[in-house]
């Protein structure tokens, strides 16, 4: 079912879809025109805070090493938490958003999408392809968007069930705990490799890049900093592993809450080339889900609690999403378009339910997705082979060669 068949999704006329597009364009223009010093001060403040948190954590681990055990314990615990939070802040609100180009307008040589390298296993270059392009261009389109299950989980009823899916609860726990390494392999496109469609030359180049980045990450957290703690190297190593685990689980949770709660739709698409800007906007709204929470929760989530707004305007500064959200929600109410949101625990509860239900064949479970409009229910069953589109080859065989 193509997004162009909008009536199937949300009972809108083509004219209404274009009108929504025009209103979203106006929201975008307003932010672009008002972008300035206050926004720059925000990102600089977040980066400064993050760096102090990381530095305090590293210093805390080193200086506490010769201390008495009674003192060392609390200092180490505080340092571990500080490092975990610093890594979360760096990956989510800073790295993810900088690499989207949200702050390129500042023309700051350091805070720029072309120069930022983040504190995680995946090389920035590969992230910008797998996330900025594949995920944001083909959001929730089955067979295109590799974020649907990260190549290991069945997350949509339209995806074929296989007995191996019975292990989903276990794979899910492993993915959460090892998320940075799951993401590191993301641009390799495991499905394409399994099917032999991956360009071997590109795969080799990417693996080399991942190995180099992964090695540096491991050296930093598991060799260099522990070595600086002398005899207490084991404590520092464990603290760093814990901080990485904190970051992994949090990033996984936030990312999964963005696209798999009940209200977020998946799409099957035969042709994306002719999608208009308004249709693209609409697919972003229908395929994403927000969560509610305090300002601090949103900052620590990379502003991905405003996932709908982020998908509509991925390159606008994240600190502006709260004010954009008010307008987008009003727009959705005006046109009676679903605006999926709820508390974080509710959204993640729905994600867990999807993961567990889809570990079983469709006939053994019921579909929890709500109707998309008055008297409109989209069937989420598996399509016959002849009805499904061919997989987009460029996802597996992306290369630097000329088109």
């Amino acid at each position, binding site marked *: 079912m193509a997004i162009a068949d909008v009536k199937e999704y949300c009972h809108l006329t083509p004219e209404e879809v274009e009108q929504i597009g025009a209103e979203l364009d106006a929201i975008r223009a307003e932010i672009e025109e008002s972008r300035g010093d206050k926004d720059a001060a925000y990102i600089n403040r977040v980066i400064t805070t993050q760096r102090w948190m990381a530095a305090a954590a590293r210093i805390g681990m080193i200086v506490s090493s010769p201390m008495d055990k009674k003192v060392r314990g609390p200092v180490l615990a505080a340092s571990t938490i500080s490092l975990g939070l610093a890594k979360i802040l760096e990956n989510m609100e800073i790295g993810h958003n900088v690499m989207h180009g949200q702050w390129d307008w500042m023309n700051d040589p350091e805070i720029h999408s072309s120069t930022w390298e983040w504190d995680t296993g995946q090389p920035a270059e590969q992230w910008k392809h797998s996330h900025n392009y594949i995920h944001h261009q083909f959001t929730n389109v089955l067979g295109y968007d590799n974020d649907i299950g990260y190549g290991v989980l069945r997350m949509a009823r339209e995806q074929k069930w296989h007995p191996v899916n019975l292990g989903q609860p276990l794979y899910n726990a492993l993915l959460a705990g090892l998320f940075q390494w799951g993401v590191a392999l993301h641009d390799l496109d495991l499905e394409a490799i399994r099917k032999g469609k991956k360009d071997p030359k590109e795969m080799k180049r990417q693996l080399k890049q991942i190995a180099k980045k992964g090695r540096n990450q491991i050296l930093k957290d598991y060799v260099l900093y522990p070595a600086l703690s002398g005899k207490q190297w084991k404590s520092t190593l464990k603290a760093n592993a814990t901080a990485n685990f904190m970051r992994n689980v949090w990033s996984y949770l936030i990312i999964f809450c963005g696209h798999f709660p009940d209200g977020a739709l998946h799409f099957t698409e035969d042709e994306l080339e002719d999608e*208009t800007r308004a249709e693209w906007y609409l697919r972003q709204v229908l395929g994403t889900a927000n969560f509610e929470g305090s300002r601090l929760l949103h900052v620590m989530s990379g502003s991905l609690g405003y996932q709908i707004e982020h998908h509509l305007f991925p390159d606008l500064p994240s600190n502006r999403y709260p004010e954009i959200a008010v307008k987008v929600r009003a727009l959705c109410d005006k046109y009676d378009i679903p605006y999926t949101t709820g508390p974080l625990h509710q959204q993640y509860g729905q994600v867990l339910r999807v993961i567990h239900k889809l570990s079983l064949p469709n006939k053994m479970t019921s579909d929890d997705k709500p109707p998309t409009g008055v008297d409109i229910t989209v069937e989420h069953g598996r399509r016959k082979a002849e009805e499904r589109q061919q997989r987009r080859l460029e996802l597996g065989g992306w290369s630097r060669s000329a*088109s």
Partner: protein
Amino acid sequence: MSRVGAAGPGTLFAWDDGVLVKATVTRCALSRVCGACGGSLARPVAFVGTAEEVGRNAFHAPPLHTACAEDVRRLLDPTWETVLTGGFEFVRPAKHDEDRRPTFVPNSLL
């Protein structure tokens, strides 16, 4: 960074025989890679276009490295001009647009 060098127009990442490939242009915009060599962009970002495109600050050609911009001009159209910017907006075509190609709007000209 540029690997276009003295090669012909056929080596340009986002062009096919001198004509822009829409899907690759989108890929360049979002992946933030150079439209000429396919490598990660650097700062500043360069755009090339006609005097009219420079005048309205909206370009059809994808972002480029500064060195690659010179190669593109040399290989495709020496009359094109180059502008440098810190960042850009990627604007998808709307239904009512006669020209259904996406455009790039530099947002911090240097």
